[in-house]
């Protein structure tokens, strides 16, 4: 942004976090090497600097971790709920105390701006543990029977876009309900889960209750397929979600899947326009658009298309892309080279199919993985970029003429995770929200999350809900 008022660099101090040169697997309360000695490197996506070398779990390690979790399950599930609650409250508090350190760590490993890890991820992580801590001794009041029982060992596989928050969404309800867990963080973002292992240690959590197994997709597949796992929870791509659904077919394993999306953000001509622009920006550029519930399709009423696009472009020009540790950075790095190439190829496809890309003037750093905020106009339902999840800072703009058409276009997708509605007319909000086939509908706001609120998709966006009272069901034998 060229302005007389150039913000000087305001980097958050990296010294608040001490990353060890190497990490083991966390099994039965101890860090251990992988049985086959395999390791992999995790890099900072904004600089490509190697942050640490991490043990890579193989199937033997999965077996060891599941055994540890099974052994721990007996005592953990037998603990009075009030005692389990206190462990979770401890964890919540320790996360609050260490939130600056964990925010910096997450920003380094993931590439997202410190502003987001500091103001969104970490407060939500602590709040999630705090919320489920309180459930641990109140399960008989949750509407799942007089004495709901845990399932046993939960195998959990989480993505790289909100590493610690997704860990919290998985581990907090699992432990509150008396299950023990084996969790596999994503291969590009293993560090915050390993730091979480240290939080568990500080909290005095009994060994084996939480086990962390960094690794790639094959590690996750081995975990999901392990015969002694009772519960599978996965957040990630729809393709992998389907594979998991096939793997568990014919077993007694309970499954929840939180998968992809192609959320429609519908802007009517009577919208609160400045707030709508903020909501559109937040909807698609929060976390560089690497959000399953992103508002990646803008459906704008034709009568205000020009006005809205002008405002949107002007607003995009003020986005600050760069060093994720800078407190003024709005757009950080793309998480990996692989993800960057996926975004790039979809964007090329969009242009090749005749949609018109636009980006603000934006200088990309010379090292690391970066993609400028982009919007496409001239997009129709038939374009690949209107149908496939891009998982990047790329917005497809489509138009509609009537509420019926808006709803029809919004629902015309195999996904059904999120949607947005912008209008000052209350009855229209309720009517449209009622017709949208999506698990979360934000009206006159977007990308709001809260531990008390169930979150999850319709259709191919997965099944089961995480968060709130609803989120307990996934971990109870009901």
């Amino acid at each position: 942004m060229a302005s007389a008022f150039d913000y000087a660099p305001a980097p958050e101090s990296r010294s608040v976090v001490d990353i060890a040169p190497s990490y083991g697997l966390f099994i039965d309360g101890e860090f251990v090497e992988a049985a086959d000695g395999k390791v992999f490197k995790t890099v900072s996506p904004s600089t490509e600097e190697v942050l640490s070398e991490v043990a890579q779990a193989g199937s033997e390690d999965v077996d060891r971790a599941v055994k540890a979790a099974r052994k721990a399950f007996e005592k953990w599930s037998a603990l009075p709920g009030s005692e389990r609650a206190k462990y979770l409250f401890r964890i919540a508090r320790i996360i609050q105390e260490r939130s600056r350190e964990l925010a910096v760590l997450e920003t380094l490993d993931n590439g997202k701006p410190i502003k987001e890890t500091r103001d969104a991820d970490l407060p939500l992580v602590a709040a999630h543990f705090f919320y489920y801590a309180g459930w641990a001794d109140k399960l008989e009041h949750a509407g799942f029977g007089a004495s709901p029982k845990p399932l046993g060992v939960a195998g959990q596989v989480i993505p790289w876009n909100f590493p610690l928050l997704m860990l919290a969404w998985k581990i907090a309800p699992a432990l509150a309900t008396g299950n023990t867990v084996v969790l596999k963080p994503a291969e590009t973002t293993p560090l915050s889960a390993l730091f979480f292992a240290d939080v568990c240690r500080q909290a005095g959590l009994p060994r084996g209750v939480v086990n962390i197994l960094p690794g790639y997709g094959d590690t996750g597949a081995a975990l999901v397929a392990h015969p002694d796992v009772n519960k599978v929870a996965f957040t990630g791509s729809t393709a992998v979600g389907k594979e998991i659904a096939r793997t568990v077919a014919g077993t007694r394993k309970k499954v929840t899947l939180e998968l992809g999306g192609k959320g429609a953000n519908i802007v009517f001509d009577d919208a609160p326009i400045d707030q709508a622009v903020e909501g559109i920006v937040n909807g698609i550029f929060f976390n560089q658009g690497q959000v399953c519930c992103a508002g990646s399709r803008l459906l704008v009423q034709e009568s205000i298309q020009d006005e809205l696009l002008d405002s949107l472009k002007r607003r995009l020009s003020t986005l600050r892309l760069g060093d994720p540790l800078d407190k003024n950075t709005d757009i950080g790095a793309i998480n990996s080279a692989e993800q960057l190439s996926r975004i790039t190829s979809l964007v090329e496809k969009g242009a090749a199919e005749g949609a018109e890309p636009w980006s603000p003037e934006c200088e990309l750093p010379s090292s690391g993985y970066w993609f400028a905020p982009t919007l496409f106009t001239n997009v129709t339902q038939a374009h690949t970029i209107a149908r496939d999840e891009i998982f990047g800072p790329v917005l497809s703009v489509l138009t509609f003429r009537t509420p019926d058409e808006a709803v029809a276009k919004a629902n015309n997708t195999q996904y059904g995770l999120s949607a947005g509605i912008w209008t000052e007319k209350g009855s229209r909000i309720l009517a449209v929200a009622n017709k949208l086939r999506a698990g979360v509908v934000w009206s006159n706001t977007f990308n709001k999350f809260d531990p008390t609120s169930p979150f999850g998709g319709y259709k191919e966006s997965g099944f089961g809900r995480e968060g709130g009272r609803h989120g307990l069901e996934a971990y109870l034998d009901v």
Partner: protein
Amino acid sequence: MPTTASAAHPLTDVTASDSTLRRFLHGLPGVDAVGLEARAASLGTRSIKTTAKAYAIDLAISMVDLTTLEGADTPGKVRALGAKAVRPDPTDRTTPATAAVCVYPDMVPVAKEAVAGSGVKVASVATAFPAGRAALDVKLADVRDAVAAGADEVDMVIDRGAFLSGRYLKVYDEIVAVREVCGTAARLKVIFETGELSTYDNIRRASWLGMLAGADFIKTSTGKVAVNATPANTLLMLEAVRDFRAQTGIQVGVKPAGGIRTSKDAIKFLVLVNETAGEDWLDNHWFRFGASSLLNDLLMQRQKLATGRYSGPDYVTVD
């Protein structure tokens, strides 16, 4: 219909009658309060350091309308204020002067003398400030007095009673009349008393009403009610001036007033300006702070940046 110098823009028609004006104002996009406040709060998290902070502090000092609006104001008090405006920090001559001093109409001659030759403007409140509850003749006489005494700027209050009872054209006509009295001699700031208008939708409508009537500045408040300038209402007014220029080509200034006391707050407002209206407004011709105690905090922060030491109230002048 009264016409003004700036009445030739494409929106002239909307003031043709009470009903066209009402339709126009009520057709402006609504404001979602939570979203507006969230955006203001989010811009408030910008971290302004080192060189950017030095720039912002000097810019903020240069934007202060150093204000005294007390029943107890005396020539002595106003003279001291004038001296402070011209030379805010006697120990550091690189400190910029403030934009203006702001006083009641009867104090304009004293203020003029105090800032003579400095480039510091004299602003006078008028139109039966702060309540505005007087006949139009009386209000116009008030303005005439101020202008005759040499006021460079007139800070008028709108008739909130008329606005809240939906008589927009009355409010409009009054501003136009004041504008005429100001002529080319004085720039006109129109105070909405946002705390009394209460809703953001009203603030947006008042902003457009004021701009349509020929305001040079739109200003939040008198400083005399419980809620004065806030980041959210100022952000909203910045959106209004931005959109008004886009539609008409006419640039209008913004002046938050009342309640801004610290450098940290002032810098947040400058961030709002920078990222909403843009750098064209980063100039005291287009943005002001109506304030009194803010100046000393800016000066202390300036000293801290220059020396590396924290300053104290004994190292800035109390006027």
